[in-house]
Structure formats: C-alpha cells, structure tokens
C-alpha cells in the first residue's frame, strides 16, 4: 500500500508554489518597510513595538501549524485509505510550527525585556507556549522513531491527537495556578489597546504574509518528505529486485 502511495514523486516545482514564494518575498519586504519605517513609535513602548509585527505573525503561524497537524492526523486516522500524504503534511506542518514557536518565544522574550524589563514572566500564555513547543519537539522525535511508513504515520497521528488533548489541560491548569499565586500582574501596557490605523494594518498584513510563508514552507517540506519516503521505497524495491536477479525465491 505504501509503495503505491509513494512510487510517483510529486514535482518539486509548480507555478502555484513559485507564485506563493514571490508573494511571500514581496510581502516580507513590504512588511519590513512598514514595520521599520512607516509605522509610528508607540507612545508607551517606543520602537520596541516594532517587534510585534514579527512576533504576532510567528505566534499565529505556530498555532495554525499545530491545528493543521491535528486536522491532518485526524484525517489520516479516519480515512479508509490511511493516506500517507496527510501524514507527511502533518509532519511538515509540525516542523514549521516548532520553528515558528521557537521564533515566537525568542521575539516575545526580547520584547518582554524591553517592555516589562524581564525576559520571562510566568504568565499563563507564555507558560503554555513553552509546553506547546516541548510537546511538538516530542512529536517530531516520535516521527523519527523508525519502522514502516504506515507505522510512523499511525504512531505520530495518535501522539498528535494526544497533544491536542494535553495542551488545553496544561493551559487550564496553568491558568488556575497563576490565578491563585499572582497578586499583582506584571506591568502590562494599557489593557485596552488602541491602535493607530497603519499599525493595525501592518499587524494584519504581517499575519497574512506569514501565512503565505507557512503555506510555501509546508508545501515544499511535504514534497521533500514525499521524496524521502519514495527513496526509501525505491531502496526496498531495488533490494528485492537484486534478490530476484540472484534467483533466490523471496
């Protein structure tokens, strides 16, 4: 079954991905210009607010990636065909998600250092983010355990669904934990944020651009993973053919 699904490697280059790549590059340039030059400084935060134009989109992409991984994993388990392509999409998406979650943590702590005066605060959202990061690092480790492709797919799909159950529980319990122990919240710049029109536009624009980058990365990574699987199957086929050629019944 796995042989049939991987024997024809998909093309590594299509018009769609090329256009997506172009949009991503152009969008990134425009976002950089908007974020660094055209938007104004924040009244309270000064220039450090510019980190937000990267921080918020990376966080968005990470969450999007993990949701996508869960959807693909559920699709793999539910589908009668047990499509390996869905499994590879889940894996590709999780890889991208882990990278962007890492970026979110880095940009977030840099911003925190500037705005709160500390790299880290035991805020429920921050704490859950770290757990998400570690959980999906674990998920990627499970993907690398070996075995047949269908074994890998089934195993990682179940672990991905477990991760989906765990994360709300972790978030909920951290929320309770903080609500009891933290009397004064660390200085949070004005609760109701009023945003300048261009700032808001840049933020939304950043989210859109990063979503395109996510799609581009996942499509390419998915193709690479398909090729890796195909190479593995070819290796097995070649080994079988060699045995046949030797005249040994298999």
């Amino acid at each position, binding site marked *: 079954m796995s042989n049939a699904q991987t024997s024809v490697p998909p093309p590594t280059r299509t018009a769609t991905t090329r256009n997506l790549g172009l949009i991503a590059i152009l969008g990134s340039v425009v976002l950089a210009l908007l974020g660094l030059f055209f938007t104004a400084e924040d009244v309270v935060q000064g220039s450090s607010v510019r980190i937000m134009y990267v921080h918020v989109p990376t966080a968005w992409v990470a969450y999007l990636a993990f949701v996508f991984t869960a959807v693909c994993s559920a699709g793999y388990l539910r589908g009668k065909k047990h499509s390996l392509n869905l499994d590879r999409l889940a894996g590709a998406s999780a890889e991208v998600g882990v990278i962007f979650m890492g970026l979110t943590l880095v940009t977030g702590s840099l911003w925190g250092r500037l705005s709160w005066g500390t790299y880290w605060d035991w805020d429920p959202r921050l704490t859950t983010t770290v*757990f998400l990061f*570690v*959980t999906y*690092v*674990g998920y990627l*480790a*499970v993907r690398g*355990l070996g*075995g047949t492709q269908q*074994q890998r797919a*089934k*195993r990682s799909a*179940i*672990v991905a*669904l*477990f991760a989906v*159950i*765990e994360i709300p*529980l*972790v978030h*909920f*319990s*951290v929320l*309770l*934990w903080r609500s*009891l122990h933290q009397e004064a919240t660390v200085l949070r710049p004005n609760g109701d944020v009023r945003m300048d029109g261009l700032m808001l536009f840049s933020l939304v624009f950043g989210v859109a651009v990063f979503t395109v980058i996510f799609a581009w990365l996942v499509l390419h990574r998915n193709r690479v993973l398909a090729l890796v699987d195909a190479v593995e199957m070819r290796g097995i086929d070649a080994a079988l053919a060699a045995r046949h050629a030797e005249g040994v019944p298999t």
Partner: protein
Amino acid sequence: MSASRIVGVARAVASKDLRIEWRSRVMTNQVLPFAAIVMVLFAFALDNDGILQRVAPGLVWMATLFASLVVVQRSFAVESADSAIDALRLAGVPSQGVYLGKVAALVVQLVVCEAVLAALALILYRVNVDRHGAVLLVTTCILGSLGIAALAAVYGGLSVADRGRETLLPLLLLPALAPVLIGATRATESAFGSDGARAAEGWPWVGLLAVFGAIFLFGGTLGFGPLTDE
C-alpha cells in the same frame, strides 16, 4: 469485546506485573532508595529548613515524577524483554485490558512510592499533617497516581516497547504531566498546611486531578492498542 473480558485481562496483567515487582524487589531495592535520595538531595540544594517546609509538597511530587519515569520504564522493559508484549498480542486479548492492567499496577506502585515520600517529607522536612489533611493526602495520592499512570502507560508503551527509545519517555511524559503536578502539589500544600493553607482548600484540586485522570484514562484506552500494535 465484552467488558468482563477486558476487566479479566486487566486483572491478570496487573497481578502479573505486581507479582514480578514483588519477586524481583526492584521497587524496594532500587526505586524507593532512589526516591529517598532525591528527597535528601533537595535538602542539600535548598539548604534552608524554612524553605524546605514550605516547598515540601512540590518536592514530594517532583520526586514522584522522577520515580515514575523509572517505574514506567521498568514496567515496559518487562514487556519488551523476551518479546513478552508480542506474546500478549498473539494471545488475542483486548489491548484495552492490557492497558488498564498496566495502569492499575502502575497506580499501586506509585502510591507505595508516594507514601514513602510523604513519610520522608514528614521526617526530613518537618511538615505536619492533621486528620483532615491525611484524608486529603491519601485521596490526592491515589488520583494523582491515576493521572500519571494513565498517561505514562501510553507513552511508556510507545517509547519503551523498543530498544533505544527510552530517552523519549521523559520528553513526551513530563510536559504532559504538568497539570497533574500543579493539581497534586496544590492539594498536598493544603494537606501539609504549607503557608497556612487549610485542608478544605485542597479538595477542588483533587476534583481537577480526577478530571485529568478520567480524560487521560479514556484517551489511553482508545490510543494504547494502535500505538503498541506494531
């Protein structure tokens, strides 16, 4: 698959596991001394009687988590040795039964471990437990162990069923056990009366532990079979 058959298999697996532990004495000769030395090392690291007394609940549960890693690895090493798990699979018994049996045996071992750790906390860290606190403490230990065991059996089955995967267990298990650590520590704080907490304040956390245990047990019952079926 009838429920009584699942229960029968679970009982058989649990009693087999506990019999192996009883005869091999790994629990008494290795795991409990390990847990005890962790408690002593905490005292070296923190080096302050007042602080120790205050953070004793957290230390008890951290030591429990460390010990649980050892216990779970042991529980599944027994299965992977001589391909015992393959024999179980070939026997055609329901995987839910195997899972529930493993969980039950793990709960018993963890509760024993926690009892020793709590006793050590009483002696070494000089915490006090009144009668109300004792009831709360026992309930917390049982439900906390259930949460740990329910999840640990799933990831244990995944990561220890094969050689060279042991390092994966802490990475998968510890982040997922954060809710249990939080709930159990808070409940134990109330039982110990740390920081002036009252025993009554601990019961909502026990409820939380019960919810976690139920969710993980349900998920594990569904997921264990496909995960270990290789």
